[in-house]
């Protein structure tokens, strides 16, 4: 219990550290620390899938994206103290706090609900095709939510790709880029800096290990904590690491990348709609096929999610350089 108290206070301290830092770099570091503490919190809440996702995505990938963005931002303008804004913020925050306190108080006084989702899930999980609760909920009982979620991810990457540079520039650039170009660099390093040899050897060691771990996490999601989202995050991490080691991964927006980005939603929709041709409902798996279809959908989702998260990092807008890549 005392560990929980200290961890909770640590979360608040890290969050306050994000806001009270003068430099943006300090804020980002505090934010990554907050993410790691939050991953520990999910473990204490007995949610290992959430801990995996928070550590990989919330702390890892978001940290990389934020640090990369810091290289593009100029020095921010001096913060002026605005009394009206502080007053408004205090009023809104106090209102929100009062509302939340009232909700908590009321919740504690309500009688126990008549339904119990834990028991309902445990009773029905054998019909779902997998034996891990979260995978069953994500890809069977509430698969509609997951379908909409991956559609949201696809919308995000479509917007991200459309903002990378003008169409004329991108057409000229995609034609001109040659195969195996190893002098690509990120936004924060000048063009003549190559990745140090130590980083390259670490990347050569870690990327295959990450890919194997991703496939394992995907496969293990049926029976223990894991699944498509964590595996996709690991693939994105492998891609980001490769990119930081100056290996050219997915930097050309060609048909292969577009296929990879969309195949998750496409296969999911296909599996969702095809039962309707044989008389079943939308998203109803035919009996006996649930386990196989879930693995198929998860595999395609892993590829898509990994490529989406990776592309959001690689194709973020950078400063234009002569002959530079995006």
């Amino acid at each position, binding site marked *: 219990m005392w560990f929980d108290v200290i961890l909770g206070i640590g979360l608040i301290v890290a969050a306050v550290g994000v806001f009270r830092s003068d430099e943006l770099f300090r804020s980002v570091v505090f934010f990554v620390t907050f993410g790691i503490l939050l991953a520990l919190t999910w473990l204490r809440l007995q949610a290992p899938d959430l801990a995996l996702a928070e550590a990989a995505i919330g702390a890892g990938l978001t940290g990389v994206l934020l640090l990369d963005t810091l290289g593009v931002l100029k020095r921010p303008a001096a913060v002026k103290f605005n009394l009206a804004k502080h007053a408004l913020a205090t009023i809104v925050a106090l209102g929100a706090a009062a509302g939340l306190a009232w909700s908590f108080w009321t919740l504690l006084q309500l009688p126990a609900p008549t339904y119990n989702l834990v028991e309902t899930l445990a009773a029905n999980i054998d019909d779902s095709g997998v034996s891990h609760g979260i995978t069953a909920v994500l890809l069977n009982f509430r698969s509609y939510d997951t379908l909409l979620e991956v559609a949201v991810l696809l919308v995000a990457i479509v*917007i991200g790709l459309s903002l990378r540079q003008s169409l004329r520039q991108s057409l000229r650039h995609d034609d001109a880029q040659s195969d195996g170009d190893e002098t690509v660099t990120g936004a924060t390093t000048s063009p003549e800096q190559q990745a140090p040899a130590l980083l390259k050897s670490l990347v050569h060691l870690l990327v295959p290990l990450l890919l194997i771990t991703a496939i394992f996490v995907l496969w293990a999601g049926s029976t223990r904590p894991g699944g498509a989202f964590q595996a996709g995050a690991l693939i994105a991490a492998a891609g980001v690491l490769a990119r930081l080691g100056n290996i050219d991964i997915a930097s050309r927006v060609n048909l292969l990348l577009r296929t990879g980005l969309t195949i998750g939603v496409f296969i999911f929709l296909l599996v969702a709609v095809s039962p309707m041709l044989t008389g079943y409902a939308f998203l109803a798996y035919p009996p006996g096929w649930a386990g196989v279809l879930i693995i198929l959908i998860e595999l395609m989702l892993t590829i898509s999610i990994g490529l989406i998260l990776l592309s959001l990092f690689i194709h973020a807008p950078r400063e234009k350089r002569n002959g530079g890549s995006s």
Partner: protein
Amino acid sequence: MSLSFEAFNSDFWYACIGAVLFVVALYAFIVSQPLLKKLLAFNIMGSGVFLMMVGLAQYQHGPDSVPQALVLTGIVVAVAATALALVLLRKWVLSGGQA
């Protein structure tokens, strides 16, 4: 008006922490001037909401897969939205905007 304090286990504590995080981050979201800080505050508001969801659902019956699955969805969508917000921020800054 009886209040059962046996309900105060660690899950409920984390739900309270989530509420505090939400309020603090809401204040910082309105007050912060650099856009990146507003984005971080928004993220922390989201994390507070996730903690409340899972904490309040689990303090009576123990670990529950349904809110955990919804929060997993939420974490992934939050990172995609953050990445998109960073893309917009970069485009804004590279086109000459401030912050």
